[in-house]
C-alpha cells in the first residue's frame, strides 16, 4: 500500500509524487522531500549565500510545493525543472527583497559552486550540450553574465557593477544575448 521506492527515481516517479502531493498525500510529500530537497537546498544556498536564510527559504519552498503542486499538472516542464523553478523564483524574490546585494561572491563560490560534475552533465545529456554550445557562441563575458544571472540570481544592477558597464548597456547585452540564445536553441 505504502509507496516504497528506492533511489534513483525517474522523472516519471517524481512527477507522480508531485501529483500525489497535490492531492494532499503526505507520504508522497515526505518522499518527494527526501528525493529532491538536497538539490533545492543547493539552489537556495547558491542564490542566498547565507545558510540560515537558505534553510528558511527551503521551508517556504516546500510549503509552496505542498500548496501549489496542482500547478504542475498544467505546466509543460519536467518535474525537476518545475521544482527548481519554484525554488529559484522563491530564492530570487527573497534576495531582491533584501536591501543589500549578496555579500561576497567569492564566499558564495566557496560555499557551493561545483561546476556541473560529469555525472550531472551526463544526466542532462544532449539538451545540456546544446545550451552550453549556444552559450559558447556568445562573447565570453556575455555568456558569463547569463550563467551568473541564472545560478546566482544576480540583478541587472549587480551584473552591471560586476562587469563595470552602465546599466543600460547591461540590459542591451543581456536582451540581445537571450534572443541569440533562443535562435541558437531553435536551430
Amino acid at each position, binding site marked *: *500500500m505504502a509507496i516504497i521506492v528506492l533511489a534513483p527515481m525517474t*522523472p516519471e516517479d517524481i512527477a507522480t509524487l508531485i*501529483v*500525489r502531493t*497535490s*492531492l*494532499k*498525500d503526505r507520504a508522497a510529500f515526505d518522499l518527494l*522531500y527526501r528525493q529532491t*530537497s*538536497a*538539490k533545492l*537546498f543547493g539552489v537556495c544556498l*547558491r*542564490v542566498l549565500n547565507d545558510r540560515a536564510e537558505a*534553510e528558511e527559504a*527551503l*521551508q517556504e519552498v*516546500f*510549503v509552496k510545493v*505542498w500548496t*501549489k503542486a*496542482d500547478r504542475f*499538472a*498544467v505546466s*509543460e*516542464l519536467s518535474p*525537476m*525543472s*518545475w521544482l527548481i523553478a519554484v525554488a529559484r523564483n522563491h530564492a*530570487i*524574490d527573497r534576495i*531582491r527583497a533584501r536591501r543589500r546585494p549578496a555579500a561576497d561572491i567569492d564566499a558564495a563560490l566557496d560555499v*557551493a*559552486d*561545483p561546476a*556541473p560534475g560529469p555525472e*550531472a*552533465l551526463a544526466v*542532462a545529456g544532449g*539538451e*545540456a550540450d*546544446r*545550451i*552550453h554550445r549556444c552559450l559558447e557562441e556568445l562573447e565570453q563575458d556575455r555568456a558569463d553574465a*547569463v*550563467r551568473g*544571472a*541564472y545560478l546566482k540570481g*544576480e*540583478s*541587472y544592477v549587480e551584473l552591471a557593477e560586476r562587469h563595470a558597464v552602465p546599466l543600460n548597456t547591461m540590459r*542591451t547585452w543581456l*536582451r*540581445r544575448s*537571450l*534572443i541569440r*540564445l*533562443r*535562435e541558437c536553441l531553435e536551430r
Partner: protein
Amino acid sequence: MTASDPTGPERDDDVLAAEYVLGVLSAGERQAVAQRVEQDPAFARLVDAWEGRLSPLAAGYAEVEAPPSVKAAIDRRLFTSSAAQQDRTGLWSSLAFWRGLAAAAFAALVLAVAVPYLGAPPSPPQMELVASLTAEGSDVRYVAVYDGVRNEVRLSHLAGQLASDKDFELWLIEGKDAPVSIGVVPAGSTAQLTPPVLVREKLAQGAVLAISLEPKGGSPTGQPTGPVVAAGDLNDI
C-alpha cells in the same frame, strides 16, 4: 520588433519572460511579471518555455543535504495542530493554511460524493480509483471514479458552468505523452464514459485525468484545444 534584428534593447513579451526566468529583474518588476503569469496563460507558456530552455544550467547547483530541522519545521508549519494552537494569529492569516483547509474540505466532499459509488460489496481496492479534478483559477470541479471491473469512468459535476456552445472533454495524461481522449463529458450532474480499451490499463495504474474546454462535440484535432479547467490524479481510496 523582430527576433532576428535585435538592434535595440526593446523588450517584447518573450524577452520579458526570459528576463524573469533568468532572474535579473528588480523586485517590483518581478512582482508584476509573476502576477501576469497568474492571469495570462499565453504569457505563462512563454515563461515555461524559457524555464525549459535554461533548465540545463541548473546542473550547476550542488546537492547539499539540508539539516533535519528544516523538514521538521515544514511539517510543523503544514500539519501540526498544536502549532495552530500556539500560533493562532500567524496561522489564521496564513494563505497556506486556508488553502490547506479548503483542500481538506474538498477532500471530505470527494469522499461524500464518491461513497455512494463505492457500494456495499467490498470490491478489490485497486479496481476503484477516485480523482478530484480541480485547477487553480478555474471554478470547474468534478469527481471521477474509475470502475476497473465495468471499465467505466463515472463523473460527478460539483461546480462550474459551461457555455452552451462548448463541451467539456475528459483526457488521460501519462507523463509527458500526448493526452488521450476518454470522451466528451455528457451534460448533467452525473455522467458515465466508457474509455477506449487502450487506455484501460493506464487508468487502472492510476493516471492523471484532465478536463479541457472544447468546441461543441469535442476537440476537432484529437488533442486538447482549450484550457484545462480541471485535473487530478486517480488514486486508491
